Each structure stands twice: as structure tokens, then as C-alpha cells.
């Protein structure tokens, strides 16, 4: 038992889209901490609120869920935390159940399961305004009388009811639920036996054990989540025995229990919900009739996606240039402040060059997260995922794969992070594996340089430039879908997914929340990717600097040829010669294995060009002059084209590898990804080059 005066720990639970997050933000303000549950990629959100007496209370915002019978890792974490199965997050003392008043009975399903746990519960009746707007009058006091726990009406968006909630949370004593309901007769002995086993051998509190027993007995295909403790062998045996018996008797306890629960909820709600009149289809319904299944809907969708895509590229240009300039200035300042030497070189080229490289992408990432937040907040995201489900499922992907893949056009890292919404593990994995094939913005400098080198005129006409770039994007996209299709047919075969998704009503966007989420996610991204890139940049700097050429006066190009990276390039040459690449390109391939955009500066260094800005002109001239030992032109149009193709397919981003490792919790998948992507890049480039040569290019 918790001693009086201890900091009470609250868990906030509820269905997705019940306004739980708004309420959590209202209670905790900026005193929030976002992280991860160890072992599983589910966001862990904790915050602190102050009681009526000014004492701090800890609140954990658990993932939105429909039932304790978990169908996704998010719901699995909710279940495990509430049942006390996670060592990293002890079971909370009290639970705040947020319920959408306009959809009361369905929302009470989870609340009813939670009341079974026997812990103090406060029910928040949120979205009271929506209920009234849809012609329903809910009586909170009647509900409180039926349930026995405090019921607080709320409109979290407007801040109404937050004070009352805080008051309720500050109470020293909270009444326990008195929603007595009877487990269906024939199932009762099984529940009793399993409950006893859980209490004796797994150390559960009696009421929690009863709830858990009920869940274990009726949950079909229980989902296991990493980081949760397993049941004792005795309990397993009891469970298995009852399950086998029911399988023999062909009893469907799952359906019976669900029906029993809904009937109990119905009785509880008698007199609570008063439907004044049936108002017919709501605004959301009317909008959906146009937006979801009609031509206008698709046009609107295309418009939204175009806006997303264009903003990422156009709106970000200014800020990106600004950041780039600041980074260059910083480098200049360091150069001026420190004496010339290795340290200065490391800081300027290794650290600032590397970290600056990732900071430059921050505007694009912010814009992507902003759009995602906007779409989610208005409720359109669910419709978009739903509409894209049919075309995506033709290649074996999920409708929810669409936004991660679209976002990967900016940068695969936030795109991959966005795959957390995909419940099916296989679909999610396939999406993660093919996301880097969507040509990310880091490939742009490569494309631009190659296009400039490939086209003989000094001034590249814009339509040609755009045309070639578009071609590269197209190839990448086709590659992504092609591989997805292949994977779903072979390695990740699974039955066609059955998708059910609740569409929240349309809402005006909540700007504060969007902004907060945007900053949070971007910061997490910077922290994770930034640290890795910093480490890699330093390693690369080392590889390209040492061992040093005995003569300190040689040019940078000789220097790099002498280094470890240079030797790697030489070693690589026999492998990449059939693709038309030589050892100098090989060095760049090695260095840009850390980050694609390094390719341009590497080439610059190798060919002895001092790069002052992103302007490819001086490098282009040097490249066009480059020759093989036998005098043949190195950068023929075919080779330039081939190099672009290589960059479309090859996995050249250690940061992505690191994020994939974190999101899949193993090294197997990132290594597989490197293998299949770079392998196919080599193969495709081989075919392209040899065919091109045979055709006389």
C-alpha cells in the first residue's frame, strides 16, 4: 500500500482520439518528458501536475487503446503497465479514464475493463460539447451513481473541467468502483482457478488477478510485448488446460464475454444517455461523403500531397541556405581561432561538416512533422491512410505506409519513425526496408552534380534538369514498390491484412499541440541522428586523413589518395570498374557511405577542388577533365547517369541504419537492408553500364 504523503502516480488511459492528449497537456503544461519504453518502440510520455495543495503528482500518458485485449504494441504496453507486468514502469496507483461522451458506450468498454482492476479510477467525460452537438444529453451524476467513481464532465480543448479534475485527483481518498457485474456462469470456475494461480505464483493483487484471468482466458492470439514479465509455469499450465478444454468443446468465450460486457454497460448507461433527437448525418459525415469515395476526394487528396511535397522542397530552401551559411561561418571562425593542424581540421571538416550536414535538413524535417501533425489533428490523416489502402495493398503494403513513404522523400529517418502507426509487424518491417529507396533530399546534391557534369552546356536548362531529377525520383519510387511487392511475396508473406480503422470526426487543427509535437519529434530526431552522425563524421575524418603522406606539402588530393579511405578506394576498383567507376569514385562511395551528400565534397577533395559553397561549377569542370590512366574520359554521360542510378538504390546512410536498428530492435534488418539495397545497386548499375556500352554510349 502506498503510504500517505507519497507521490501518487496516475495513469491516463482512453480510446484513441478521445482528447486524452489535450487533457494531459492541460494538466502538465511544459513539465513533460518523452522517451521510449525499453525494448519496444512505443513512446513513453510522463508529466507532472500539481495538486490542489501544490503537491506534485506524476502522470503517465499511456497509449490510446480500445481494449486490454491488445492488438498492437501500443495497446500491449497499456495492458502490461496496468497489469504490473513491466519492470521499468510499475503499475500506477490511480487511473484516469478519459471517455468520449459523444460515443459513450463504446468508450466505456475499455473503462469497464479498467474498473475491473479494482484500483481507484476517475472517469473524465470529455467532449461534452460534441455530445450535445450530436443530439445526446449525458448526465454525469447518473453515471457517477451507477459506477461509484467520480465522473468529471470536461471540454479539454476549451480547458473546461480541468480544475474539477485536478480537485478530484487531489482527494486523499477515492471511492472504488461499484459496477458489480457477473462473469458468465460457465466461465467462472476457470476464472477463479486462474485467478488463484496468479495471486499465489505471480504475486498479483486479487482484483487485478481476476481481471487478468478474464483477459487471458478470452483473448484470442495474445500479443506479447518486449519488456513485460512472463507468467509463471503453473499459471501457464492452468491457462493451457482450460483453453484446450474449450477448444474441444468448441466454446467461444471471447464473443460471449464481449457481449456480456456490453450488456452490463448498456444497463449502466440506462438513464445516463438521453438522445434528444436524431440529427441525421453530421458535418463530418457530409464532408466524408465528398472526400472519401469520390473523384473530388481524390483530387483533394492529390492537392494535399502536392502541397506537402512542394513545401518540403520549396519552403525549406531559404532556411536551409541560412543554416548552411551559418555553418560555413562557424567553420571559418574555428579556422581563424585555432592554429592550423589536426584538431582544427577535425573540428572544421569532421565535426562541423558532419553535424552541419544534418542540421541543414532540419527545416525539411520540421515541415514534414508539421504537416503530419496538421493532418492528424484535423482528422484527415485517417482518411488519407484509408484511401491509400487499396492501391498500397496491391503491392502488399498498408494504407498507413503512405505517409512514412511520402515523408521519406525528404528524409528516410523521420519517415521510418512514422511507421510506428502500422500495427502489422510485417507490413511495418517492409515499409521500413523500402523507405530509403524513396529518393531523399540528401541525394539531391549528387543528382545536381551529376546532371551538371553530364550535360555539355555550361548552363543547364531547367526543364532538362527537372526532367532528369523526376526520372530519378520515379526510378526510386518504382524500386521501392517493386521491392515491397517482392518482399511481401517471398520473405514476409502474410495473409491479406484485415483493416479496421476508426475515423475521428473532423476538427479544427490544434496549433499549439501541433507545434509542440513538431518540436518534440524534431528534437528526438536531432538527438538520435545527430549523435550518430557526429561519431561517424569523426571516424570518416580519421579515415580520410590518416595515414598521412610523408610530404606535408602535397595537395589534398594526393593526401586523400594516401589515406585509409584512398586505399579502400583502390581495393574497391576491380569491383566497381565493370560499372564504369574508378578508384577515385570508389573513395567517394566509401566516404558517402556515412551520408550521401558527403559525395560532392569528397569528389571535390579528391579532384583537388576547394569547395566554397554548394555551387557545383568548379567541381563539374574538374570532373569533366578527369581521365582514366589510358586517357579515356572518366565521367562520360553514361557514367554520370549510372552514378545517379547507384545512388538511387544503394544504402548510403549510416544514420538511417542506426534508426532502423533502433526501430526493429536488431541488427539483422539494417544489415539486410544494406545488403539488398547496395547489392541491387551494383547489379543494376552493372546492367546499365554494360548495356550502355554495348549500345555504343
Amino acid at each position, binding site marked *: 500500500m502506498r503510504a500517505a504523503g507519497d507521490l501518487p502516480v496516475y495513469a491516463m488511459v482512453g480510446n484513441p482520439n478521445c482528447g486524452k492528449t489535450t487533457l494531459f497537456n492541460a494538466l502538465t503544461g511544459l513539465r513533460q518528458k518523452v522517451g521510449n519504453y525499453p525494448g519496444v518502440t512505443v513512446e513513453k510520455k510522463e508529466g507532472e501536475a500539481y495538486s490542489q495543495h501544490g503537491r506534485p503528482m506524476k502522470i503517465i500518458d499511456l497509449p490510446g487503446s480500445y481494449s486490454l485485449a491488445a492488438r498492437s504494441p501500443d495497446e500491449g504496453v497499456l495492458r502490461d503497465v496496468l497489469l504490473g507486468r513491466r519492470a521499468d514502469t510499475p503499475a500506477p496507483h490511480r487511473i484516469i479514464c478519459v471517455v468520449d461522451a459523444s460515443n459513450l458506450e463504446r468508450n466505456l468498454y475499455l473503462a469497464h475493463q479498467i474498473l475491473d482492476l479494482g484500483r481507484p479510477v476517475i472517469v473524465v467525460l470529455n467532449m461534452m460539447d460534441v455530445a450535445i452537438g450530436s443530439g445526446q444529453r449525458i448526465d454525469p451524476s447518473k453515471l457517477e451513481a451507477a459506477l461509484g467513481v467520480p465522473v468529471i464532465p470536461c471540454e479539454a480543448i476549451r480547458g473546461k473541467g480541468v480544475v474539477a479534475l485536478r480537485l478530484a485527483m487531489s482527494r486523499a481518498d477515492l471511492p472504488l468502483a461499484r459496477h458489480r457485474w457477473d462473469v458468465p456462469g460457465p466461465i467462472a470456475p476457470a476464472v477463479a482457478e486462474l485467478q488463484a494461480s496468479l495471486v499465489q505464483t505471480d504475486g498479483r493483487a486479487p482484483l487485478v488477478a481476476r481481471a487478468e484471468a478474464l483477459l487471458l482466458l478470452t483473448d484470442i492470439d495474445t500479443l506479447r510485448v518486449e519488456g513485460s514479465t512472463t507468467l509463471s509455469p503453473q499459471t501457464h499450465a492452468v491457462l493451457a488446460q482450460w483453453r484446450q478444454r474449450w477448444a474441444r468443446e468448441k466454446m467461444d468465450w471471447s464473443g460471449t464475454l*464481449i457481449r456480456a460486457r456490453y450488456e452490463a454497460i448498456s444497463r449502466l448507461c440506462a438513464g445516463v444517455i438521453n438522445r434528444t433527437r436524431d440529427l441525421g448525418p453530421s458535418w463530418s459525415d457530409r464532408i*466524408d461523403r465528398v472526400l472519401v469515395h469520390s473523384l473530388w476526394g481524390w483530387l483533394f487528396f492529390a492537392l494535399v500531397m502536392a502541397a506537402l511535397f512542394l513545401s518540403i522542397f520549396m519552403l525549406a530552401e531559404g532556411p536551409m541556405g541560412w543554416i548552411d551559411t551559418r555553418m560555413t561561418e562557424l567553420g571559418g571562425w574555428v579556422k581563424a581561432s585555432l592554429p592550423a593542424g589536426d584538431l582544427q581540421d577535425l573540428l572544421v571538416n569532421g565535426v562541423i561538416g558532419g553535424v552541419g550536414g544534418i542540421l541543414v535538413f532540419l527545416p525539411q524535417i520540421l515541415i514534414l512533422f508539421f504537416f503530419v501533425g496538421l493532418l492528424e489533428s484535423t482528422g484527415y490523416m485517417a482518411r488519407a491512410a*484509408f484511401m491509400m489502402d487499396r492501391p498500397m495493398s496491391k503491392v502488399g503494403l498498408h494504407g498507413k505506409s503512405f505517409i512514412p513513404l511520402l515523408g521519406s522523400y525528404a528524409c528516410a529517418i523521420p519517415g521510418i519513425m512514422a511507421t510506428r502507426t502500422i500495427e502489422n509487424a510485417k507490413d511495418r518491417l517492409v515499409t521500413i526496408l523500402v523507405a530509403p529507396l524513396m529518393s531523399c533530399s540528401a541525394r539531391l546534391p549528387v543528382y545536381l552534380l551529376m546532371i551538371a557534369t553530364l550535360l555539355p552546356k555550361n548552363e543547364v536548362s531547367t526543364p532538362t534538369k527537372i526532367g532528369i531529377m523526376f526520372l530519378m525520383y520515379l526510378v526510386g519510387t518504382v524500386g521501392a514498390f517493386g521491392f515491397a511487392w517482392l518482399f511481401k511475396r517471398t520473405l514476409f508473406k502474410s495473409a491479406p491484412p*484485415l*483493416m479496421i480503422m*476508426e475515423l475521428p*470526426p473532423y476538427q479544427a487543427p490544434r496549433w499549439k499541440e501541433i507545434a509542440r509535437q513538431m518540436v518534440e519529434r524534431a528534437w528526438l530526431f536531432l538527438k538520435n541522428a545527430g549523435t550518430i552522425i557526429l561519431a561517424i563524421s569523426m571516424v570518416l575524418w580519421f579515415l580520410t586523413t590518416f595515414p598521412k603522406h610523408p610530404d606535408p606539402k602535397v595537395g589534398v588530393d594526393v593526401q586523400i589518395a594516401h589515406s585509409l579511405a584512398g586505399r579502400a578506394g583502390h581495393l574497391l576498383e576491380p569491383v566497381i570498374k565493370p560499372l564504369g567507376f574508378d578508384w577515385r569514385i570508389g573513395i567517394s562511395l566509401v566516404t558517402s557511405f556515412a551520408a550521401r551528400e558527403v559525395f560532392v565534397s569528397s569528389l571535390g577533395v579528391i579532384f583537388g577542388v576547394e569547395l566554397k559553397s554548394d555551387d557545383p561549377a568548379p567541381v563539374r569542370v574538374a570532373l569533366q577533365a578527369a581521365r582514366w590512366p589510358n586517357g579515356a574520359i572518366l565521367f562520360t554521360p553514361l557514367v554520370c547517369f549510372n552514378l545517379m542510378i547507384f545512388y538511387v538504390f544503394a544504402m548510403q546512410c549510416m544514420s538511417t541504419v542506426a534508426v532502423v536498428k533502433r526501430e526493429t530492435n536488431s541488427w539483422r534488418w539494417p544489415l539486410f537492408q544494406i545488403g539488398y539495397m547496395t547489392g541491387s545497386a551494383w547489379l543494376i548499375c552493372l546492367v546499365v553500364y554494360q548495356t550502355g556500352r554495348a549500345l555504343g554510349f
Partner: protein
Amino acid sequence: MTTPLFDPRVPLCQLPAGAMGRVCAITGEESFVQRLREMGLGEAAIVRKVSGTTTILCQVNGTRIALNHDAARGIMVEQLPGNAH
């Protein structure tokens, strides 16, 4: 005793837009069916079809639900008289 000229039971994807139906039977992968029931789409639930013939949109007791084709095919409903426009 006259038998109806047609079987009023149809899969949810074939229910006309705007029509109401009562769920008679649900088939499909067991854990998915369990989830359907938990979300209110159980046997005897009244569902109003909003739109769609392959991916579909429907309303169950205040909840707006989207289903893909394979899921909707497994839900047999009996059309109820009257429209709910």
C-alpha cells in the same frame, strides 16, 4: 407462406450507401473478429453504410469506422427497411 424473392443478407460491402443493416454473422481471422466485436460491430449491431463498395465507410452507434475490402466481405448484414438520410 411466401419466401422472399431474394436473400436480404448481404456482405457489408454490398449494402447500398445510406442504408441500415443489422449484422447477422461475422467471419474472418479470429483475433480480428474479436476486435470488431470489441469496437461495437458484433452480431445484432445496427450499422449504417456511409459509402464505398471495396473499401467502405460505415457508422456504428456513433462511431465512424473504415474497413478494407477483405474485412467488409466477412461481415454479413441484413438490410433494414428505410433509409437513414
